[in-house]
């Protein structure tokens, strides 16, 4: 059959089955043609491409509306760290940059605070939130650090540390191979958390790790003492008495309080820098003629308050109040030293010398508005309140806070007690972190963190009451 004829025959059959759908199918004698007609009959049910596309669009629109976010996966059996940070949004961005974190989601309150967020680092979930003190959520920046460290494994810890440092993390322990099979380092983030980051180099049993540990211990004797951030002979807080007549002042405190000079050098701001021991404490003093003084009050515990009081008067101090028995169990007298400083000379009667928890020298600050200073001490310096007694009008008569191994006392400036603008030196484990925390709490930078020629890293801030706080730490020696 000529093709032309077949084309025409097929079309006739197609036209017939379209025109009369109920009629029996046309059945051409030609078997091949008959097969085409059967196909044509089936094609009467062919769906329209327009309909298929429209329905798909409809379904997609419906799915979009019904689309709930991917359900939060059931937590794996693992302990999930929950980090409280000041500025969770910034922390999330930081962890993305530093650790390649993926944000799983966040809740945002109308005030912009994030009460809950989840990120994933290398498959591990980490939860975090803004600090919300009203719910008992405090950040390391408020608490003065966190003892909790989070351990993360990465494929390439060296690359990770580079990336984290570029994002603003600080190395607190450089990466090296450890006996327990990890290549490992430690980082501190700007939010006060410490991260141990590792790459597993060897998969070891605990027994093998223990064997290596014991061998190391035998080799080295006792484990090396953790490096004390505080300089030998010092405590966390050292008052720095800035006076305009340093030579006269040194003569006075040596004569009055038996201070013993341990070190003298030209001061970094000119004048003289002197370090002195009084009893179990160290103070620093310095200054130059015309140099603005930084007056402070010193609570001084001695075995015999009366005799020291009289020695101070003899050395040139003016009496502030005569020694008397105080309701808090101390015998105490006060002098003004003529250089702007008050000395509260006390003997705790129960012990015959020191009050428990205090040393020979305890710096005492007299701000106007002691509550706001207390707030800065806590948030900016990580101080812990130990006691706080208030006058009937609500002002703070006497409070004490602990910073590291030292105590500071605070009492509202009033009447004859003039405001102090002290200078204090704090030995801290991490100068940069301490500086950042103090600035974050409202401290004004007076010295950026920098290494000093005398082997310490130092930074300074001034609080809103005019007190200067210098953070210092010995510079770690480069590993050889």
């Amino acid at each position: 059959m000529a093709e032309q004829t077949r084309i025409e025959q097929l079309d006739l059959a197609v036209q017939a089955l379209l025109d009369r759908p109920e009629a029996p199918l046309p059945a051409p004698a030609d078997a091949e043609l008959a097969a085409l007609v059967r196909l044509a009959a089936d094609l009467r049910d062919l769906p329209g491409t327009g309909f298929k596309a429209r329905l798909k669009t409809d379904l997609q629109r419906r799915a979009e509306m019904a689309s709930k976010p991917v359900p939060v996966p059931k937590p794996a059996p693992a302990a999930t760290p929950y980090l409280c940070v000041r500025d969770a949004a910034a922390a999330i961005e930081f962890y993305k940059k530093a650790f390649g974190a993926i944000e799983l989601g966040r809740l945002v309150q109308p005030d912009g605070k994030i009460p809950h967020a989840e990120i994933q680092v290398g498959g591990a979930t980490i939860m975090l939130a803004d600090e919300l003190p009203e719910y008992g959520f405090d950040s390391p920046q408020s608490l003065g650090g966190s003892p909790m460290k989070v351990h993360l494994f990465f494929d390439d810890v060296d690359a990770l540390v580079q990336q984290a440092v570029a994002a603003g993390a600080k190395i607190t322990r450089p990466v090296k191979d450890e006996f327990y099979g990890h290549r490992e380092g430690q980082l501190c983030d700007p939010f006060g958390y410490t991260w141990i980051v590792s790459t597993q180099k060897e998969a070891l049993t605990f027994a093998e790790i223990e064997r290596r540990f014991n061998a190391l211990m035998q080799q080295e004797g006792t484990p090396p003492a953790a490096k004390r951030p505080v300089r030998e002979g010092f405590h966390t807080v050292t008052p720095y008495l800035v006076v305009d007549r340093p030579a006269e002042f040194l003569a006075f405190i040596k004569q009055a309080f038996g201070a013993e000079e341990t070190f003298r050098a030209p001061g970094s701001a000119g004048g003289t820098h002197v370090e002195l021991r009084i009893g179990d404490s160290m103070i620093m003093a310095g200054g130059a003629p015309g140099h603005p003084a930084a007056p402070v009050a010193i609570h001084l515990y001695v075995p015999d308050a009366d005799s020291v009081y009289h020695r101070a008067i003899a050395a040139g101090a003016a009496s502030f109040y005569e020694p008397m028995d105080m309701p808090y169990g101390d015998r105490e007298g006060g002098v003004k030293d003529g250089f702007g400083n008050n000395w509260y000379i006390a003997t705790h009667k129960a012990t015959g010398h020191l009050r428990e928890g205090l040393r020979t020298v305890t710096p005492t600050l007299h701000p106007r508005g002691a509550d706001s200073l207390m707030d800065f001490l806590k948030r900016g310096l990580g101080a812990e309140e130990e006691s706080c007694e208030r006058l009937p009008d609500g002002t703070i008569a006497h409070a004490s806070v602990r910073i590291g191994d030292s105590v500071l006392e605070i009492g509202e400036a009033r009447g004859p007690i003039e405001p102090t603008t002290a200078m204090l030196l704090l030995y801290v484990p991490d100068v940069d972190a301490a500086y950042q925390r103090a600035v974050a709490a409202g401290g004004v930078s007076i010295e950026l963190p920098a290494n000093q020629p005398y082997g310490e890293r130092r930074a300074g801030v001034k609080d809103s009451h005019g007190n200067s706080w210098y953070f210092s730490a010995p510079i770690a020696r480069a590993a050889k």
Partner: protein
Amino acid sequence: MLLESPRGEPGLPAPGHQQDERLLVEAAQADPRRFAALYDLHFERIYAYVARRVGSRAEAEDLTSDVFHQALANLQRFEWRGAPFAAWLYRIAANAIADHWRRTAREQGNPTAGEPSATSDTGLEEFELRARLFRLVGELPADQQRVVEMRFVEGKSIREMALELGRTEGAIKQLQFRALGNLRAHE
């Protein structure tokens, strides 16, 4: 000639597709926006099944639409027990068709009447084959595809098509012939 489907066999899912399909279903259950992939996979067979059992194209489209909307809305209820997803869709379609006929019967005042020529005992192979044919149409060269769509979906005459496409009636008939021949060759 462009007749090879990129997926290989259009229509019937091969046994190896089970695992893939399971992943698609689970993805869509987690995120309904992923349902489109399942729709693409199953549209033709459900349409073929529905179209065979209702009187008009409009009804076929309405019911097919119902079936997929129901499937999307109830996707969470689908549990993978080894039966293919298509079986679940066929069941939804069968119920939708039954409802359709009951509704039609009530509207016509004949509440006992059901589907006129109930073909529930018919095997599903027929619809699988037809779905395959419908997919093959999508693989035809564009001009043949257009002619098939105009002729069988839009119900146009050879004359109307010739005018619309700017070809002779002979050319249109030839395209129709070639198209059916191609489909036959790959059936």
